[in-house]
């Protein structure tokens, strides 16, 4: 199993969630973050003070997935989050030592397999 961390544009979040839902990927964490990926800086002016916004708002998704879902998840995000311009973000696939589901004390693969309710 892996931990997939994706940094995407905030305005692409809805599309990515939709795409993940269609790919049957359930269970994720979303956080708002600031970041910079080489895109052009926006210049803003506040009554004579001109600033370059070096950090842009991004959204970070964290998804723990079982092995068969790694490709599916990555592809879903790649397709939905892409605009083709600098600043679309990145996806990291990170090895995971152990995963536990708190409710059932299940471990590893069982813990990242969607629960059937």
């Amino acid at each position, binding site marked *: 199993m892996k931990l997939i961390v994706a*940094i995407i*544009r905030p*305005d*692409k979040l*809805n599309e990515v969630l939709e795409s993940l839902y269609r790919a049957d990927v359930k269970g994720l964490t979303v956080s708002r973050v*600031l*970041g*910079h*990926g080489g895109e052009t*800086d*926006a*210049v*803003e*002016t*506040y009554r004579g*003070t*001109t*600033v*370059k*916004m*070096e*950090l*842009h708002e*991004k959204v970070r998704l964290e998804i723990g997935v079982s092995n068969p879902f790694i490709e599916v998840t990555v592809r879903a995000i790649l397709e939905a989050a892409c*605009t083709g*311009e600098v*600043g679309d*973000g*990145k996806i*990291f696939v990170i090895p995971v030592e152990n995963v536990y589901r708190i409710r059932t004390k299940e471990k590893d693969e069982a813990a990242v397999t969607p629960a059937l309710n």
Partner: protein
Amino acid sequence: MVSSVLSATALLAAAVQEAAPAAAAPPPTVSPADTAWLLVSTALVLLMTPGVAFFYGGLVRAKNALNTMMMCMAAFGVCGVIWAVIGYSLAFGTGGNYLGDFSYAFLNNVGLDAKGTIPHVLFMAFQASFAVVTATLIAGAIVDRMRFGPYLAFISLWTVFVYAPIAHWVWGGGWLAKLGVLDFAGGTVVHINAGVAATVAALVVGKRKDFGRQAMLPHNVPFALLGAALLYFGWFGFNGGSALAANASAGQAFTTTMLAPMASLVVWMLLDFFRNRHATAVGAATAIVIGLVVITPAAGFVSPQSALFMGALGAIPSYYAIVWRSRTRLDDSLDVLAGHGVGGITGALLTGVFADAAWGGTNGLLHGNPAQFLKQATGVGATIVYSAVASFVLLKAIGMVTALAADAKAQGRGMDITQHGEEAYSNGEGALLVLETVDATPVVRPAAVATAGGVA
């Protein structure tokens, strides 16, 4: 002979004496009391523009908050100036049945002389505050997507070519005034007019990029409530001031203006409760505005009891118009059609029902004068048709010169950054100060954040 001459002289003298009072009808004088009330009223109406800004600003997403509020505040500038330059003259110059003239262009001949019982300059200022707030209402239908420049061009031209003529029809001695259409403070001129123009604008400018696919929720509901409160407060000047005097009619308009939104708020909360099991805050803010819209044409023509009925009845069509609109593909983003269009039509028609000669104006349907109802319907129809056609032509004309809507990418980033280069809620992190030195070589001071090898 002598006696006949004498008698002729006496006759002449008598004739002169008789004619004298008519010839020298007391010159209109400025009443200090009326002037004082209109001074206050004008300031109150001016407060409605920021009221609309907060109402609309709270209802949009955070990334578009400034743009939405700027659409309202900027009307002070462009619509106010164009009103002074030409709008006032076209609306209130003597002119003909359909349009004023150029006699007051650039405020020529608008002086300290009395217009009614208030100074002419003050009358002009009072009317200017109406022109500005009317234009801002349109913004609600095209938020989140219309480019700022074309928007300003549209509301400026709209003030001249749509608002001024209709104001002339109703208040400037035009054909609707002669027909006897009752519009105390602007149900047709302001609300139906703006509601229809807004709908046309929503259709011509087009839908927002993710409309119908993604929920677009209000980012600050307290702002919307604050805006509704400011509107309620300002509306006492809007309706109360439309008596153009500090008299009983002003007191009546003030009271009806207070009562109608109270009734519509109660009805709206009940409708909300039975439909959704909750009385919502956004609904309450909307209900107050709709109650105000409904009573506007009737404020000085109906009894306080009728005002309660009008407010209560008026909430219903607008409520269901909003329910209906959200199921259609019409992206009238903040429901200007349901609020001001439908609310204005309901108000104008109900004025023809509840109007009471004992409370000023003429009798309506309920007091045995069904003809008044038809006159009101004529006013409504004429306003809808003219406003729709003229607004459509203006928008298409501007659209031929430049794009009306921002592209999908700009909408995605948000209109605050793309249209104004500012953010409503910037946290300031990661902002590099661009120092412009005297010899104009920009110096960029490095930020305190490490970005090399960043993850995004």
